[in-house]
């Protein structure tokens, strides 16, 4: 992982808009706000903002994880407790190496759960996203075509996404 001052990353805090009428109805306002303010956060890294939907404790664990191994441990714990694996990708805003790691773990976890179609769909989407040249995309298109039966309705969607990605080169 690149050297990063993680304290600097934690520039943003969890803010949310509330209707004061909802606030007035609460008998335990502290608990209500505590719960409502738990589930979203924005972190800023290298000038880019990432909206993430994680419990602050997890986000803090990710941010303050020392080194790659500790990060891996944090993500493994998260994967075991995650109810919605495909949301995990949105839940982290890390460098590309960590993102790749998370992607691999999601695919593996989906496969273990017997969700082969979702696992492959996710993997191919990740591959499209990280493709850097037309050759990469052509290889992905070939894999999409080869797995048309398993992918079903996602096939056309993946091919369209690959075309859109190609336009960015």
């Amino acid at each position, binding site marked *: 992982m690149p050297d990063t001052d993680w304290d600097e990353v*934690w*520039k*943003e*805090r*969890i*803010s*949310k*808009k*509330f*209707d*004061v*009428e909802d*606030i*007035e109805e*609460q008998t335990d*306002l*502290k608990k209500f*706000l*505590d719960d409502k*303010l*738990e589930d979203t956060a*924005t972190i*800023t890294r290298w000038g880019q*903002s990432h909206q993430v939907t994680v419990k*602050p404790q997890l986000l*803090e664990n990710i941010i303050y994880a020392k080194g790659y191994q500790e990060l891996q441990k944090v993500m493994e714990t998260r994967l075991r407790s995650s109810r919605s694996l495909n949301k995990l990708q949105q839940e982290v805003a890390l460098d590309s190496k960590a993102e790749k790691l998370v992607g691999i773990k999601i695919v593996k976890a989906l496969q273990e759960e017997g969700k082969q179609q979702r696992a492959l769909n996710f993997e191919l989407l990740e591959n499209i996203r990280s493709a850097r040249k037309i050759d990469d995309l052509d290889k992905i298109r070939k894999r999409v075509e080869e797995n048309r039966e398993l992918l079903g309705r996602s096939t056309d969607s993946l091919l369209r996404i690959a075309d859109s990605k190609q336009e960015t080169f």
Partner: protein
Amino acid sequence: MRIKIDIFKKTVLLNFAVLSRKTTDVIGVHNKTIDGKFCLFLDYDKTEEQFLKSELEHLQMLYDLGNIYIFKSSEKGFHAVSFVKLKAHEFMEIMQNSTCDWAFKQIPRFTTFRSWILRSFEKGDTERPKYLYTLKRESSRELSEAHYRYFKKLYPEIEEDKRLDGIKDLFLIKYKTRTNINA
């Protein structure tokens, strides 16, 4: 802790500070209104109440601030709040003309939400701010209804306010702090 060493005709001062590494979650309220204006929020630390009061009365008269609610946030810490809606430059001018905390004045410039925040609940062992009294004054300005009602919920005993703007949304925040957790 400060150590003073006299060497020949010079004095060397060494300052030591102990910073807590313990963090705690705190919930607070933004002073920004949904329509882009700002309520008056001022945060004072290590201040004597008598000096704070005279300063606020002066600002209240000078800038037509209406009621100013005073809260005690710690032993020598105070919050001053008025629900009048101010344009950004008006709020900044009032804040710069006050002796509130330097950090409070500066920090929002380095965040993307560009808003000032006052704590509403406990911070570690420090209790939530306690309402002390209101510096009463009529104002011709419009007031933030959302902020007024939020504070009224927290402190039912605060004075009634009028000329409310009818907007019911406001921003609240949860943030981590390391400073003065046990202060």
